[in-house]
């Protein structure tokens, strides 16, 4: 059998099908240059081409396509946020996600699981009720459930009162889902490339050309490129690239680590999150338990893994699922999250004209990929900020008008 498989793999009758064309030569000028070929940059390119017929677009990346946080996240998709503006935006994204396999004609393995945010303290239960009310008001399926109901939803969860932090209740969000993160980047890349967008991996932006207060091009490791406007979507590198354009962001780059266990038979249907215990866990379609927690405690641009993280995380995982004691951790990794002080993203205009920002996605931006791409494309095409993303402007910090999304975003992703 394995021999047959090798023969199949090497046979010229079954060639590897390229998902998108090999890297073309860089042209001297494009209408739009998008920095960052993660999900966000590629989705923006896709919708620019599809909705606005703008195809003279180059997406440049210093690494390979979708190799940043898009490849590293734990793929949780949900809309049970706390602020009305946040809830509306993430709901729009979740709706796009539901239909994305069809839209891209590429299976992103969208899997609706339900999402439980456990509460172990009165304060956490209060936040759950608050979120449930905001959500219901906006038509989102969220409700507070008791331990008895939790036992029905997720029977393997340890609901014993004889633990350090007994479970008092949870916020149950039925639309909570996971998807195959790489497929999202590839699907958008394929769709964009088919419509004429150029994708340039291994092309690092080293400087932004600004003339008379407006962006006019980028300097790259493969030469200078002029353009009508620039979109920056570089996640953990947001401050560094914004610095090239000459302005600062309210962002700290912090590593966020995650890990997976060896594959197990399916037993965990729901995505389980505990803010108090700093842990979230779901089971992938391969059977691996995907686990993570909060960001590392200090700023860093290094994607090293630490034992502190796994040790701390497993203490909590074992409180929730004690029978996992003998299960092994298979892989561990990190991505660099671009953290804002109000746990909300920054989308829209920047201090430089024709230079659009898509940053501050921290630990929660995968679920935003389709909506972010849609609205960023609208903005670039029309030159106007769509209502849906106006509240996320960078300029909110000048007005001391931050979001209050921490209660719904800090561990849940």
């Amino acid at each position, binding site marked *: 059998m394995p021999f047959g498989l090798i023969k199949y793999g090497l046979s010229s009758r079954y060639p590897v099908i390229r998902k998108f064309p090999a890297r073309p030569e860089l042209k001297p000028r494009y209408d739009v240059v998008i920095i960052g070929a993660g999900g966000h940059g590629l989705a923006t390119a896709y919708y620019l081409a599809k909705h606005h017929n703008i195809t003279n677009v180059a997406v440049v990346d210093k690494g390979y396509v979708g190799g940043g946080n898009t490849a590293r996240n734990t793929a949780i998709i949900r809309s049970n946020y706390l602020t009305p503006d946040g809830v509306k935006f993430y709901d729009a994204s979740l709706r796009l996600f539901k239909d994305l396999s069809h839209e891209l004609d590429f299976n992103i393995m969208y899997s609706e699981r339900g999402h439980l945010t456990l509460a172990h303290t009165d304060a956490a239960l209060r936040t759950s009720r608050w979120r449930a009310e905001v959500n219901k008001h906006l038509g989102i399926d969220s409700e507070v459930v008791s331990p008895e109901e939790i036992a029905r939803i997720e029977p393997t969860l340890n609901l014993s009162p004889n633990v350090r932090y007994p479970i008092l209740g949870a916020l149950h969000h039925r639309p909570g889902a996971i998807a195959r993160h790489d497929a999202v980047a590839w699907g958008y890349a394929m769709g964009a490339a088919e419509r004429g967008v150029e994708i340039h991996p291994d092309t690092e932006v080293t400087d932004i050309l600004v003339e008379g207060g407006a962006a006019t091009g980028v300097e790259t490791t493969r030469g200078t490129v002029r353009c009508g406007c620039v979109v920056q979507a570089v996640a953990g590198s947001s401050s560094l690239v914004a610095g090239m354009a000459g302005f600062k962001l309210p962002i700290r780059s912090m590593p966020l680590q995650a890990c997976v266990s060896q594959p197990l038979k399916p037993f965990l249907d729901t995505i389980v999150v505990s803010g108090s215990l700093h842990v979230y866990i779901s089971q992938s379609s391969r059977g691996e338990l995907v686990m993570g927690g909060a960001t590392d*405690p200090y700023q860093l641009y290094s994607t*090293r893994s630490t034992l502190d993280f796994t040790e701390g995380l497993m203490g909590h995982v074992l409180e929730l699922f004690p029978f996992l004691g003998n299960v092994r951790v298979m892989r561990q990794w990190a991505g660099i999250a671009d953290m804002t002080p109000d746990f909300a993203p920054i989308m829209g205009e920047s201090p430089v004209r024709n230079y659009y920002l898509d940053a501050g996605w921290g630990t929660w931006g995968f679920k935003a990929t389709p909506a972010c791409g849609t609205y960023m494309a609208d903005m670039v095409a029309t030159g106007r900020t769509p209502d849906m993303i106006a509240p996320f402007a960078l300029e909110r910090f000048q007005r001391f008008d931050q979001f209050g999304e921490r209660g719904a975003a800090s561990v849940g992703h």
Partner: protein
Amino acid sequence: MKIMLCPLNGPRNISEFVCRGDVVDRPDPTACSDEAWADYVFMQDNVAGIVREWWYHVATAYWFIAERNTVTDEIVRTYPASEIFHPPVDHGTDSGGRS
């Protein structure tokens, strides 16, 4: 386990410490513009390289300064705040009732 050299307590596990952000000059809140204040409160240099930060040893409530490399995760040097703040920081509060 990562070890940090505390100027007061010697080498300790880094989990005993809290990082409290860059050492920056605070503008005078009564004199500066709203813009300058927002800049001070929210904007970050977020440097990839050597940074100079306030750190805090939780168990002994001791504040000090650390220089570390945010690309390699190396701690370059730690020292008491008095090394650069001399005389000590004036918080602009009235000086009566010193305890």
